[in-house]
């Protein structure tokens, strides 16, 4: 091809793009359009799907009850493939092309962090169901979350380790690939050392690894009283199985990433007696939770909702509550209403928004006993 032809082609491409750029925003019909972005495929699909199912259930329930302010909700869900670089696009699409009034997502903090500046720049409220990294809401005053944050959870577990478990020496086993795990480990270590404990071993794994024996052998050699594993249940179950094989028989404990019925399904007997903190306990016999668990099981083939599902559900309910109080979906009003939330009762507990737009709420500590999550304690902030 002639060189001029090549450059012409480039020029043409630019022109085409320019022409395509003149699209326009969403509609303002009867339904209230809300956007959701989640990892429905890819590496972390299992979390995204859970939270999405909770989200979808909440929307269905609201609509069945006649919608909000007489208008039904319409959920637009986009898959970000668990891939960095995607959330910004997806959220841009939801906002600029679909014209959603608010954005829900994501479970993973790294992807919420990518989407947050987009929502902030467009002044569209974003509610993350389960991103616990404190940085997420630092992106701006339109960013909210319905879960507690890592410093709180880390401190809760540090206190739990030193007071309840009476551990002096704790080993920390972190997923280096996960911002969540690293954050939680950091706040736990700070809290535990402050409480007078000693971190006797710090080892790392990569989320998705299947062999942890190397690290566990090293941890065993350090003779800890307990092992803190801030990770996701997929890895944690296998870690506990292999720890059991190595007869590393001290309590293991972790955070909300543990919460899934899969943890016990996969880990089986190896999970017995371990602890974790989370947002809610499915076996908590409050009517609200029982109703949610039952509805969820009915909708999704008998699956028990995990924390991600519960938080996804709460993110919708929290938004609905805000819309109701704001009396509409106008962005600044809605933002204001959400920020001023004083008391919101979700399946994951009572919460209030603090000045950082982080949910101030209690954590629960569960113990695994007889293959079930047993409620142990509620730790208020």
């Amino acid at each position: 091809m002639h060189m001029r032809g090549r450059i012409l082609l480039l020029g043409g491409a630019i022109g085409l793009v320019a022409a395509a750029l003149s699209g326009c925003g969403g509609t303002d019909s009867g339904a209230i359009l809300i956007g959701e972005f989640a990892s429905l495929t890819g590496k972390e699909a299992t979390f995204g799907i859970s939270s999405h199912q909770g989200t979808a259930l909440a929307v269905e329930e609201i609509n069945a009850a006649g919608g909000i302010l007489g208008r039904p909700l319409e959920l637009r869900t986009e898959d970000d493939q668990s891939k960095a670089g995607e959330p910004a696009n997806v959220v841009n699409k939801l906002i600029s092309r679909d014209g959603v009034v608010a954005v829900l997502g994501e479970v993973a903090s790294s992807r919420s962090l990518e989407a947050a500046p987009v929502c902030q720049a467009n002044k569209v409220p974003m509610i993350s169901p389960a991103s616990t990294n404190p940085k997420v809401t630092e992106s701006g005053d339109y960013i909210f979350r319905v879960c507690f944050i890592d410093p709180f959870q880390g401190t809760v577990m540090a206190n739990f380790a030193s007071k309840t478990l009476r551990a002096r020496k704790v080993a920390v086993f972190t997923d280096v690939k996960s911002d969540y795990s690293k954050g939680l480990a950091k706040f736990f270590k700070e809290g535990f050392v402050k409480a007078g404990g000693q971190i006797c071993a710090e080892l790392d794994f990569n989320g998705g690894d299947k062999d942890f024996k190397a690290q566990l052998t090293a941890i065993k050699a350090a003779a800890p009283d307990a092992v803190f594993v801030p990770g996701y249940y997929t890895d944690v179950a296998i870690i506990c199985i292999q720890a059991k094989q190595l007869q590393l028989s001290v309590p293991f404990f972790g955070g909300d990433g543990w919460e899934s019925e899969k943890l016990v399904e996969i880990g089986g007997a190896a999970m017995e007696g371990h602890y974790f903190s989370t947002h809610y306990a499915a076996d908590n016999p409050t009517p609200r939770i029982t109703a949610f668990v039952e509805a969820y099981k009915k909708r999704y083939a008998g699956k028990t909702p995990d924390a991600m599902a519960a938080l996804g559900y709460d993110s919708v309910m929290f938004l609905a509550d805000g819309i109701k109080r704001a009396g509409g979906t106008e962005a600044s009003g809605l933002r204001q209403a959400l920020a001023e939330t004083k008391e919101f009762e979700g399946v994951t507990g009572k919460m209030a928004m603090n000045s950082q737009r982080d949910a101030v709420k209690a954590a629960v500590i569960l113990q695994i006993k007889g293959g079930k999550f047993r409620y142990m304690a509620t730790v208020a902030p």
Partner: protein
Amino acid sequence: MFSRSPLSLPTACQGAKRWLIAAVLCSILLSFGQFNRYYLGVAMDVGINIILAVSLNLINGYTGQFSLGHAGFMAVGAYTAAKFSLVFAVAAPEPARPVLFLVALVLGGAVAALSGLAVGIPSLRLKGDYLAIVTLGFGEIIRVIVQNLEAVGAASGLKGIPKYTTLGWTFALASVTVYVVVSLVNSTYGRGFIAVKDDEVAASSMGINPVRYKVTAFVVGAFFAGIAGGLYAHHKQFLAPTGFDFLKSIDIVVMVILGGMGRTASVALAAVVLTLLPEVLRPVSEYRMILYALLIIGLMMARPQGLFAFGRRAVK
């Protein structure tokens, strides 16, 4: 490449520069337009991917090496540029920012080019599959290092990067990349890249130093991948190490192969198509990646020379 008229050579040389200036001006004008942010964001992705694909084409397409580590170079550029901006540009007065942005981009490119040099050196001894795995490994090592580097946010990612990337910047730099690669290859000097690809032994018997060309390709390719990384950082405003894993490299390789190795215009076109395709396929998101995989397989069966490879160029 050149028309049959013997006079075309010098004319084409000068014409190209005019077109570059036009393309850059055009891009800058675009920046002033008001566009739907989604389309704007996708358009910037398109521009960034053009830079990535066209620069990888210099390594894989023109020089015949097989690099699977382009995402690594991109990561180096992205993190370098972003860190620079976070330290210097944010505090600087408004008017100085475009200059500082340019400095950040070039710095990112330069550091990426240095890493290109580091990868180019093993390429002297390794070929084919072995080179591919070494470049892949290099990309992964970069990712692991970044993942552990607290200064750039480690696994939590680097956030708060100012949004400096505009459509103008993106396409102006895409134009520059296309221009540089086209100009480089379309010169007596540049025929050496293709000669090395076609037959290293024969090339070296013609006085062409294959080592120098291979390393040059890596350095220039990495430089522009670094620039693309910088644009990406200031476009997404957030960097996570997982965004630069080897699947990202594969995406870029697929663009090069889809376009047709060693054809800049076709590769740029493929970058456009492959960036838009996933967006178009959003409504069937469940099947999106399955379709993408099938597309790769089908393409290799039906048009291994590249989807947009027209004309009479011999295919090896």
